[in-house]
């Protein structure tokens, strides 16, 4: 990657500039996001008041857009950990200037994903029944249930990502603290926990950071595997498949990378970070998308091949139904957006052009959302017994909560963009050669 042409003081100046008071556009975007979150709040109030009947969920599709959103947002979270932890372990230098944003995406996506299983409970105020504690009569949660694994996996992932995110922030918060005044200085000073950059702090810090990265790496693979087992452990045709875990993990990273590109490009433009987030960063992400896109495409083909090759008529019927049935348009959006369009990134001109990058990334996000929808709804709408077949149609509640979840995510991201350094100051400095004098009396 291109070496930065910078020095330490310049890095501080450029990167702290992103934290200057926001302009009018930021407030407008914030207001829009808050309006949609309020809409979600209204829809939820309706659900709590009248029950799950206000959703479009009905037999046989008792899991639809809510679980689609859950799986989608958990997936979005994955690329952040890939960039911050996996690429860290591989000593990939270009991660330095994008990992903070990617990690923020992880944390906020999980905060969004975590809402859905709870909303979906029907009686959300009993969500604590999922936690491991002794209930009436000595009963504990059923640890053989994939839904309980989900609780453990997603909660662990959320806590570990938050710790990892905050640990990475501490030295940067000290830089902010030292260059601000008044109440800001006090708040950032508290958050920086008295960071002074001493050799003792660095020694333990670098060690702890390495271990957190090493723990986050297997964790990220396990989380979407566990999410996929929510489906694969059942006997529903189209779900009961051993390919699900790797297929979901690849899909998760595919959608997450696209989301990171979608967010990095405006960030780079608005904050004028071209010296930090260079074309080569985006190009590298695009190359990763080609890889994950190929894995996802391969999984689609394998699923169809196995459904046909198994001669299991139920399995084959579900896949036939996906491709040509009631939801065929969703299936084809998914195939085109996730596997065919990303192949355009093989062309260097396309993966180095900002409009193409934004366009294709947005399409991949759309495609991945529909992939979740396709997997969940089509299998439930047509399982073994034709008597139970049905069609799912969302109501305004489903749609408002979905729109609200996107707004909730962007609300946090907007706050992050102004309140925290969006590019890691310390890690960028680490990539620079330290200032040396040489010669003379040294």
């Amino acid at each position, binding site marked *: 990657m291109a070496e930065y042409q910078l020095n330490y003081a310049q890095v501080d100046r450029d990167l702290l500039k992103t934290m200057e008071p926001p302009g009018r556009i930021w407030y407008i975007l914030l207001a829009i996001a808050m309006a949609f979150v309020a809409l979600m709040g209204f829809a939820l109030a309706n659900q709590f008041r009248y029950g799950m009947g206000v959703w479009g969920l009905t037999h046989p599709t008792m899991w639809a857009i809510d679980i689609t959103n859950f799986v989608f947002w958990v997936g979005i979270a994955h690329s952040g950990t890939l960039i911050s932890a996996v690429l860290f372990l591989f000593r990939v230098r270009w991660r330095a200037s994008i990992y903070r944003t990617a990690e923020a995406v992880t944390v906020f996506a999980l905060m969004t994903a975590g809402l859905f299983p709870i909303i979906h409970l029907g009686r959300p105020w009993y969500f604590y029944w999922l936690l491991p504690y002794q209930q009436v009569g000595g009963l504990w949660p059923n640890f053989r249930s994939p839904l309980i694994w989900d609780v453990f996996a997603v909660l*662990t992932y959320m806590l570990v990502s938050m710790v990892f995110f905050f640990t990475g922030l501490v030295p940067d918060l000290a830089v902010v603290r030292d260059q601000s005044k008044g109440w800001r200085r006090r708040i950032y000073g508290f958050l920086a926990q008295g960071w002074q950059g*001493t050799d003792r702090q660095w020694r333990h810090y670098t060690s702890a950071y390495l271990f957190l990265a090493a723990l986050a790496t297997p964790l990220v693979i396990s989380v979407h595997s566990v999410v996929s087992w929510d489906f694969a452990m059942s006997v529903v045709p189209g779900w009961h498949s051993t390919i699900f875990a790797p297929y979901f993990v690849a899909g998760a990273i595919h959608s997450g990378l696209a989301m990171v590109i979608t967010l990095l490009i405006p960030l780079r433009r608005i904050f004028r970070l071209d010296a930090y987030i260079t074309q080569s960063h985006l190009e590298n992400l695009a190359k990763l998308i080609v890889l994950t896109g190929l894995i996802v495409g391969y999984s689609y083909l394998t699923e169809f091949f196995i459904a046909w090759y198994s001669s299991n008529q139920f399995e084959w019927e579900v896949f036939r139904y996906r491709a040509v049935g009631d939801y065929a348009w969703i299936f084809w959006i998914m195939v085109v957006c996730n596997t065919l369009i990303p192949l355009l990134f093989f062309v260097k001109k396309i993966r180095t052009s900002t409009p193409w990058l934004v366009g294709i990334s947005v399409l991949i996000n759309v495609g991945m959302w529909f992939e979740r929808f396709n997997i969940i709804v089509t299998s439930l709408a047509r399982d073994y017994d034709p008597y139970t077949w049905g069609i799912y149609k969302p109501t305004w509640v489903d749609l408002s909560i979905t729109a609200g979840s996107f707004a909730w995510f962007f609300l946090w991201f907007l706050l992050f963009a102004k309140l925290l350094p969006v590019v890691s100051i310390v890690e960028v400095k680490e990539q620079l050669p330290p200032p040396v004098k040489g010669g003379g009396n040294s």
Partner: protein
Amino acid sequence: MSGQVIGAVGHFDHFDRLLKAIRVLRASGYDNLRVASPVPRHEFEEALGRRESPVRVFTLVGAILGGTIGLGLTINTSIGYPLITGGKPIISMPTFIVIAFELTILFGAIGTLLGLLVNARFPRLRIGPAFDPRFCQDQFGLFVYCTQEQLETTSNILQTAGAVEVRHVEE
């Protein structure tokens, strides 16, 4: 800041000068040194002769504890309330390993965090008198613990090594 000198701190603009100062000071018998730096660099840790951080022990203990708790929780609660679900054995290891795995990671991470807090003495509400905001920006600081009598010599060594500024630190 009442009297009592506890040492001198040299500000360095250049990394090689800092390393040289560390070597000179250690050669002259000063072992109580502290470096403050805007970035982590292995060079100064080597020059200071620091040992490997013990945080890894915290990680290991946390992870083992988490795995044990995960297995203990699932196995014991299943034995305590033996309800067969899905025709599976009461102790269904493949499914319990998922829980044990997640708790291994969770407790490993909590252990790492504790290791960081304990070893690096976090959180710290008061910032030491030797600290200067520039040490988080673009300067390196070298703090030498010494007595009032050694102060002159220490400052001289720091200055000769290339410190752009030498401050005396009082408690």
